[in-house]
């Protein structure tokens, strides 16, 4: 977690200043994902708090069944966690092997933050599923998921594609596409039975 330079070892520094600074940094990055434009903010000051929050939120929303029962969705929670983090690490390794000049944690940061649109899609899908099931229900969810999936791809490639040499951009972007596709698939096929 990149920090601003503070006075070294000042014993009177409270905890509230680093806390507010980190919270503001996370909020700023969420804004950058929602309105992607070419900027270095996501890359320069990386942090992994946003991806952690998004991952936990997504995993909680993807639970099926009641929370108190014996087989209470435990494996699905861990499954979402593993897919997100293992997928992000794999993409990062892939882009490093292709010769990209982005560091390990920066890449994880970007991929994690760009899950935000899909998390919003999950929220919308859960609300839509409260209405009666049917083809219209499904079409609405499909439409929302496709839009958010495209948004995630655009946001992440805006940050990641620049770090690759021009002839390798497609090779680096293709696993990102697969990663968000798998998450979108999990969201679309979710039924709260």
């Amino acid at each position, binding site marked *: *977690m*990149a*920090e601003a330079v503070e006075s*070294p*070892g000042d*014993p009177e*520094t409270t*905890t509230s200043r*680093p*806390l507010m600074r*980190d919270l503001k940094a996370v909020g700023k990055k969420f804004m950058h994902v929602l309105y992607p434009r070419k900027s270095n903010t996501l*890359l*320069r*000051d*990386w942090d992994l*708090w946003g991806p*952690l929050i998004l991952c*936990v939120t997504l995993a*909680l929303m993807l*639970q099926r069944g009641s*929370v*108190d029962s*014996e087989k*209470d*969705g*435990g*494996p699905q*929670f*861990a499954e979402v*966690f*593993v897919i997100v983090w293992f997928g992000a690490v794999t993409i990062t390794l892939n882009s490093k092997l292709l010769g990209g*000049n*982005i*560091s390990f*944690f*920066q890449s994880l940061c970007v991929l994690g933050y760009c899950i935000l649109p899909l998390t919003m899609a999950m929220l919308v899908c859960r609300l839509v599923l409260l209405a009666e099931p049917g083809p219209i229900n499904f079409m609405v969810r499909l439409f929302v998921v496709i839009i958010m999936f495209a948004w995630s791809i655009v946001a992440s490639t805006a940050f990641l594609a620049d*770090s690759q040499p021009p002839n390798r951009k497609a090779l680096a972007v293709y696993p990102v596409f697969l990663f968000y596709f798998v998450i979108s698939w999990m969201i679309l096929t979710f039924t709260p039975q």
Partner: protein
Amino acid sequence: MLQQDSNDDTEDVSLFDAEEETTNRPKKSKIRHPVASFFHLFFRVSAIIVYLLCELFSSSFIACMVTIILLLSCDFWAVKNVTGRLMVGLRWWNHIDEDGKSHWVFESRKASPQEGKTVSEAESRIFWLGLIACPVLWVVFAFSALFSFRVKWLAVVIMGVVLQGANLYGYIRCKVGSRKNLTSMATSYLGRQFLRQTTGDTQTSSGE
């Protein structure tokens, strides 16, 4: 020595100050940041306790997992940003420069003769004890989860190992500094401990 005594007299008495200690000895064994020390240990120990006892108290795996994740995250943030700086004067972070290269920076506060800026031994002991014992426990849990096939806990346990191991590694690098290497530091530390035990040394080392 006498100048230090007058400084000590005007300082506030902290929670763990031993009143019967003579004022000839510099007071370095009191805890200056009781809240930081408490929270340094609180999050780590609660995460371990919740992990061990969750099957007894709650039938919901999810609630336990989310609680442990929350505690581990709070602990990581607190130890990295607050307690290391306050208790032992060390800090570490990552800095990305203009060219996009990432540098890891490890810093330790220079010992100064002012009373407010030295490291107290009690706090240092608490800090390092908490920092070292907990990741070791999480590694033990990882092996036990693996070999008893309770694989659904592996995600949380691995997260514990990674987060707490990262702090441990960062602070050890800060302590060792960029010049010495780990083996020479370990040898000198063990040598000093051995010497202290054999000579029954009770004097505190001056300035660290």
